[in-house]
């Protein structure tokens, strides 16, 4: 069974059909790219999966259970973590606390034990900090854990969002334009990080405009145009698909 399966998902904003009868699947352990021209509805798809929007019609199954209409924090608890297209870090809070925010849903201390700092709460807190430092080390930001997140460079802020999402122990990681605003070197590092994430057993679904990155790491591509699926399959096949070239690549096919 697929880890994530969308079937006939439709999302409407007023008179605009943002996603139209969209169906695709994400297999466990794979890296899947969701691509399409600007305004094709890619981020809307992500927002439907993560619970920020509720689709009007259709079903979204995560590991066999329906997650349609669940609130975002419930979706995270079930094992889907995300990053945002426009970076949404807690800029004034330290880097470490941003990652701890991602760990929050795996912690259990209640109001009273938080006020009293019970031994169990302290242990949990220490374990969470250790775990979050590991995630920071994973993306290479461990030494900067005390700095304010807003002070990091753009590329590092993207990496911090990834670390924050990973701290929630996701089974599916959703990345919305992870390479946006990164230079070539940073993008190369990101490719390594995404591969390392998959090697940890986390499935990755990403939106990306950087075609080189997409071609390098994705095993499967889903192509959207005007909210409709126009192609799905291996990168090589999709790349040769006339509909895709027509709709998406147009004149600028030399990027490929």
């Amino acid at each position, binding site marked *: 069974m697929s880890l994530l399966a969308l079937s006939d998902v439709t999302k409407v904003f007023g008179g605009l059909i943002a996603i139209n009868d969209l169906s695709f699947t994400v297999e466990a352990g794979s890296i899947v790219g969701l691509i399409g021209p600007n305004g094709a509805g890619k981020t809307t798809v992500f927002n439907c999966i993560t619970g920020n929007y509720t689709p009007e019609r259709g079903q979204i199954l995560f590991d066999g259970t329906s997650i349609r209409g669940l609130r975002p924090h419930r979706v995270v608890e079930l094992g889907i973590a995300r990053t945002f297209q426009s970076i949404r870090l807690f800029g004034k809070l330290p880097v470490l*606390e941003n990652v701890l925010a991602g760990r929050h849903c795996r912690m259990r201390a209640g109001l009273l034990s938080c006020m009293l700092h019970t031994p169990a709460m302290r242990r949990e807190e220490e374990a969470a900090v250790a775990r979050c430092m590991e995630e920071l080390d994973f993306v*290479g930001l*461990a030494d900067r854990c005390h700095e304010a997140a807003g002070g990091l460079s753009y590329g590092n802020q993207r990496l911090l969002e990834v670390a*924050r999402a990973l701290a929630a122990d996701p089974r599916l990681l959703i990345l919305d334009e992870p390479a946006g605003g990164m230079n070539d070197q940073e993008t190369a590092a990101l490719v390594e990080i995404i591969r390392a994430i998959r090697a940890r057993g986390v499935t990755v679904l990403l939106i990306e405009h950087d075609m080189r990155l997409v071609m390098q790491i994705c095993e499967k591509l889903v192509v959207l145009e005007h909210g409709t699926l126009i192609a799905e399959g291996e990168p090589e096949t999709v790349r040769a698909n006339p509909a895709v070239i027509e709709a998406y690549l147009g004149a600028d096919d030399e990027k490929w």
Partner: protein
Amino acid sequence: MTRTVFSVALGALICVLPLFCNAYWTDVCVMIGLYALLSLSLNVILGQAGIFHMGHAAFFAVGAYTTAICNTLWQWPIFLTMPLAGATAALFALVVARPIIHLRGDYLLIVTIGIVEIVRIALLNDVFGLTGGSNGIFGIARPRFFDFRIVKSIHFYYLVWGMVGISLVLFYGLWRSRFGRALNCIKADDVAAEGCGINVSRYKLAAFVLGAFWAGMVGTLYAAKMTTIAPESFNFMESVIIFAVVILSGGSQLGVLISAFLFIGLPELLREFSDARMLVFGLAMMLMMIWRPQGLLPPGPRRYPVVDRILGKLHSSGQNASGGLAGLAGAEVETPVNAQTAARTGEDRP
């Protein structure tokens, strides 16, 4: 560091202060303590979670009336009514806040102003025939601690400030926990907080209910101190003052204590200039907004003692801790020494 020294000095001063005060000034200090308590509880809602709540006097009133009613009608001892007063206020907060908690900023502010007015008018109209209308309730007994009757100002001084001490410890613990961090995240960006897995509406509601519980217990102390309570003690202006204390404080607990003193103590000190004092006050507030909009003392960074140990381990494990993948990225990497000093300059707060 300076904050720690200052806090200890302030603590010592508070302990010995009544020895040098006459009854009048001790009473003023009791009032400062009560406002400090209310502001500490509002600080969880407004300062930590960023919920614009200007109706805190409503919960204060519910607590005070709960104590007054239980004590005058059924002769419950004051201290026994305290948890009940807190629980009633908390329940009230839960009921009124549940439908409005998703409102943002100014919208929520207006609704909370409505709440405090509704409570005041309900009390004025002798709701359930229990609140005594505009006369309020009088003849509330003095609290008794075993055989010790708390009557004098100085007794109340230590009772109220003892409660302030306990509240400081508990709220500090809360601030330094996942609960406090969750509230700060919600304040910074509630969409991102929800997206990270924080149940935003639940935490907002919890902050609200906790703040109300505390305000209710402060209501008990207030009723016991005054022995007479009336609806006019819980009007909109009270809410505004508590709100202003928290805004002025900047959100740290030490800041709350200082700004409670400035708001309640300073007008008493300036009594000689009677007419001009509100003018001076308004001017001071305006200047604050211009030069220090973040408030007197924003909270310092939280300390994570384990972090240094973990960083040390990462460095000693041979590889450069930041070398990993960001090293590949050519990202500007702070030298470990700088990171460590940055960690150390992080100050504690009371």
